[in-house]
């Protein structure tokens, strides 16, 4: 005879969803107001990207592609900021463009303060080409030259006379690139940028895409991989800035614990039923 399941276990599995919303919100608000500053260790995928940029010769050009839209700003923007910070600080030439219509102005707001901080001259040390549609077709066109596809940069001045494009006339002349992306744009930087033009790359992706691009790190097609807010926080730590990603990590930790607690809570009644059934089944067998 199966013992009647006490209502408390049943009730725990049937809480109203607004309780969950409340607990998750609290689990985020408290760490934001009272930071815990939990220590963060840097993983090898992120360190590989940092080392590759650090050891590039000073005369090399690096492309940081801002391939994300406002819905992925929280995860991708801190990555883009710390990557541009690192490229400018270590004296390499920085080229920026985006495959997303919304991200031209966002890139501009990132580059301005950094350029002032490291005294980088626009058109000579860094340039923001803004948005152009075409994705893989655009990259194919960039393989032959930057200036035909981007006659004007984001600010509207012509790219023909810029010193950057006389030193690095096409995508093939890049030494390295990082695609900070919220979706599938990484694919064509691998299949065209690397396979056809030979430019090695790494990717900074939203957490959602981590499992998918892990396979490309194993084959060596991606030099490294920054994953989600944690990847951004790790790179901020390597570069030595304390940006939004680091601030968000405490809240991320507590929120994860709360969600895991709820997953277990939801399954308590289920697991109890299974155990009870097994016990009663064994008793009947005896």
């Amino acid at each position, binding site marked *: 005879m199966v013992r009647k399941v006490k209502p408390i276990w049943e009730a725990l599995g049937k*809480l109203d*969803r607004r309780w*969950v*919303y409340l607990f*998750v919100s609290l689990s985020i608000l408290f760490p934001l107001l009272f930071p815990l500053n*939990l*220590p*963060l*260790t840097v*993983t090898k995928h992120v360190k590989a990207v940092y080392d590759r940029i650090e050891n590039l010769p000073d005369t090399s050009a690096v492309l940081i592609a801002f391939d994300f*839209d*406002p*819905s*992925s*700003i*929280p995860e991708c923007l801190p990555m883009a900021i710390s990557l541009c910070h690192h490229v400018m600080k270590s004296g390499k030439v920085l080229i920026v463009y985006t495959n997303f219509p*919304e991200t031209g*102005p966002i890139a*501009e707001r990132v580059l301005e303060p950094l350029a002032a901080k490291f005294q980088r001259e626009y058109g000579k040390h860094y340039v923001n080409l803004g948005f*152009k*549609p*075409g994705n893989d*077709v*655009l990259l*194919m*066109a960039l393989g*032959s030259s930057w200036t*035909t*596809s981007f006659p004007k940069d984001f600010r509207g001045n012509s790219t023909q006379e810029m010193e950057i494009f006389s030193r690095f006339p096409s995508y093939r002349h890049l030494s390295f690139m990082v695609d900070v992306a919220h979706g599938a744009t990484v694919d064509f930087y691998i299949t065209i940028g690397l396979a056809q033009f030979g430019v090695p790359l790494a990717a900074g992706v939203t*957490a959602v895409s*981590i*499992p*998918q691009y*892990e*396979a490309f*790190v*194993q084959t060596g097609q991606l030099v490294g991989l920054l*994953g*989600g807010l*944690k990847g951004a926080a790790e790179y901020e730590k390597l570069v030595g800035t304390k940006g939004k990603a680091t601030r968000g*990590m*405490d809240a*991320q*930790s*507590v929120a*994860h*614990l*709360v*969600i*895991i607690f*709820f*997953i277990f*809570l*939801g*399954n308590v009644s*289920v*697991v109890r039923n299974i155990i009870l059934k097994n016990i009663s089944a064994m008793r009947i067998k005896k």
Partner: protein
Amino acid sequence: MLRFTAIIICGIAGLIILVEFFFRIPLFTKLQNGMMDWVIILLSFSYLMGGISIFLSHLQRIQRKYDGWYYSLVLVVCLLLMVTLGIFVDYGPNGAFQWLFKNVQNPMQSTMFALLAFYVSSASYRAFRVRNLHATLLFVAAVLVMIGKVPIGEILWSKFPEISQWILSVPSLAAQRALTIGAALGLIATGLKTLLGIERSWLGK
């Protein structure tokens, strides 16, 4: 007959790319570079067409007084405002166009996906049931990856980050690789059928 011409053009355009990829013929390289610039312009016009079709469909709702047509009126007014501001008035960084983009479009686009965090959390609690072996594997991998990907996980037990990374770079990698191969095959087959005119859904009615 005219449909047949469109299919021929589609085939020729694809053929140029394929021939240029495998053979060093300067003519085809020139043709390909020219075509790439053309396609960028055509794609831009196709996005314009998408925006205009949204404008026309909501305009129609206003004329036909569908229920909630006043919402469409608000939409049409906002759309025209942004287009006139962007193209004719001031596209610069501190103009009204960028102000509206920064303070209206950005926050809403981010918040819409932030909503999902609430739904993910309530789904984790109410729907994530360990019904069978498959759901158990799903449960174990989800919890281990989540605990390993945050600093607090490392404090609880130093092995958590390693386990989480192991799951991502061995079992999950193998399954993702099979999915990637499957997806790649699907795209190659669809590309082949499109160039040969077997796949015609893009032609429309």
